[in-house]
């Protein structure tokens, strides 16, 4: 076991002052710009990730949020060893990812929703077999794990179809299977549900939660679907312009950003308009401060005794919208 484990004994993932700066060539427009570029190249620095620090413990499920280009994927790629940090330290399971040691690669996986490892023209079963050979898995263990995954993801009918004939959702299920056949201890998931329909999103979420529960795998997940984050993670990291700006529970974030509750009456009751409710697809909806909710509910029940009433937190995607809007306003007061 590497000695770094002794230095950072608790965290499975330990990131300290991580930065990644890309040097990007500036291409000037027009023919003259192209000609000048032949002889003199100018560059600018892009700070994709700046001074990011966090720790993740064994078995945690953490959501990694931020707008496009915020630095989420760059961070995941550095954590999995694909990108070398410009500065800072990373330890994952006691390894330094950029060294890409085989013992490290055997214990992690990175699922990229937009990139695939399945071989396109032959059945997914062959990619699984290829991974068995590449990870040098014991055949009996491999068969047991594959049977388990086939059952969890209901894959038995599609295992022998060429990958090109599978639907997007079926392909993603096979991608996930290929990615976890070696039972990784750490799962980096970058947009695993992108482009999937609602039913398939639910299935993928259930699978990720199952993996975490059964095998104790640590999960770091990015997704543009806030339902993924809400369903799977209790801790959230928010990154914006390369900087980590929030690390905490969803509840704390809700208290900070959207402390009110949403009260929903699941039928049309005009009498509630006077209480500030608005009609929304045949329902009546309003928001109220947490300490006002009970009073409001009493009033609703008085006016509509048979109504079905629900009280919800503000949805995570709305919370994120507010969060980034408030940060934008702070950065740009005009």
């Amino acid at each position, binding site marked *: 076991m590497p000695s770094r484990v002794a230095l950072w004994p608790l965290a499975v993932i330990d990131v300290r002052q991580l930065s990644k700066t*890309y*040097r990007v060539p500036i291409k000037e427009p027009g023919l003259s710009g192209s000609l000048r570029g032949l002889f003199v190249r100018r560059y600018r620095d892009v700070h994709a990730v700046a001074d990011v620090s966090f720790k993740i413990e064994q078995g945690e499920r953490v959501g990694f949020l931020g707008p496009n280009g915020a630095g989420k994927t760059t961070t995941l*790629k550095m954590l*999995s*060893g*694909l*990108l*070398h940090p410009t500065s800072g330290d990373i330890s994952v399971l006691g390894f330094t990812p*950029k060294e*890409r040691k*085989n013992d490290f*690669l*055997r214990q*992690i*996986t*990175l699922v*990229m929703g937009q*990139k*695939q*490892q399945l*071989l396109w*023209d*032959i059945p997914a079963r*062959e990619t699984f*077999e*290829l*991974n*068995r*050979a*590449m*990870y*040098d898995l014991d055949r009996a263990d491999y068969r047991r794990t594959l049977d388990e995954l086939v059952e969890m993801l209901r894959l038995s009918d599609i295992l022998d179809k*060429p990958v090109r004939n599978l639907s997007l959702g079926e392909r993603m299920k096979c991608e996930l299977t290929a990615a976890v056949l070696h039972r990784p201890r750490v799962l980096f998931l970058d947009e695993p549900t992108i482009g999937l329909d609602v039913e398939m999103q639910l299935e993928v979420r259930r699978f990720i939660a199952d993996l975490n529960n059964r095998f104790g795998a640590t999960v770091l997940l990015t997704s543009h679907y806030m339902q993924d984050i809400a369903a799977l993670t209790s801790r959230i990291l928010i990154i914006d312009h390369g900087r980590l700006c929030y690390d905490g529970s969803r509840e704390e974030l809700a208290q900070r950003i959207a402390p009110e509750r949403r009260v929903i009456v699941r039928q049309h009751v005009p009498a509630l308009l006077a209480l500030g409710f608005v009609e929304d697809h045949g329902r009546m909806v309003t928001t109220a401060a947490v300490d006002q909710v009970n009073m409001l509910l009493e009033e609703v029940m008085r006016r509509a005794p048979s109504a079905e009433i629900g009280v919800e937190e503000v949805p995570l995607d709305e919370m994120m919208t507010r969060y980034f809007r408030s940060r934008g306003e702070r950065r740009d007061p005009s």
Partner: protein
Amino acid sequence: MSGLLIHLRAAPTLLRIGFAEMVAYRAEVAVWILTATLPLVMLALWSAAADGGTLGSFSQDDFVRYFAVILVVRQVTSAWLVWELNYNVRTGALSPMLLRPLNPLWWNLAETVGALPLRIIVLSPILAVLIWWKPQIALLPSAATFFLGCVSVFLAFVLAWLVQAVFGMLAFWYEQSVGLYNLWFVAVALLGGYVIPMDLLPSSIVPLARVLPFHSALGAPVEVWLDATPDPCRTLALQAVWVAVTATAAWFMWGRGLRRYGAVGA
């Protein structure tokens, strides 16, 4: 377990799946093989030029025999690593491969070897037609020539694949690595015996051409098979030297290239 042992243990499965993949692509692979039939064109051209007599030391039958063997050697030493590496590096498709504890080049090698049976199947009818047309070209080599010829083809295969690896890895630094590889191939065509047999080159450049890697990658195994090289062991030794040089360059560039890939984006 050491990395090398794991690579060797994985090889049978990789070969089997590489072959399955090529069978799935059989139509495309067959068409691709058939597009690489320049030797047949050269055969027709040089035979017509010899016109019943000889050109240099080559009779018409010698040309048919030479280009038939060139066709086979070219096919069994073909690879597509340069295009694949170039594409994978530039699009980031290399990333998922780098996450697995097995060198992605090893998988490409398995795919390349997996395509060999298909190449032989596609070549067989072409060779059958040539032998039907000129039965006298089908000379059985001696056991020693057969053995040395097999070793020489193997070395040419490894050299050609490593050369593609080196040019493909240039994509880590340079976008037009495929263009540079095309220049290499032009040199193989002109100085390696692909379109002009070595003996028909101007005599002043033959000694130099014989020691260059272009000849080791294609012309050398053909000459060993045809028993047309004065010292086959020296030819094999030279091929082995070029394999060692290219392997060292590929090993060095892979390490450097991955560092760069990790530095500028993956």
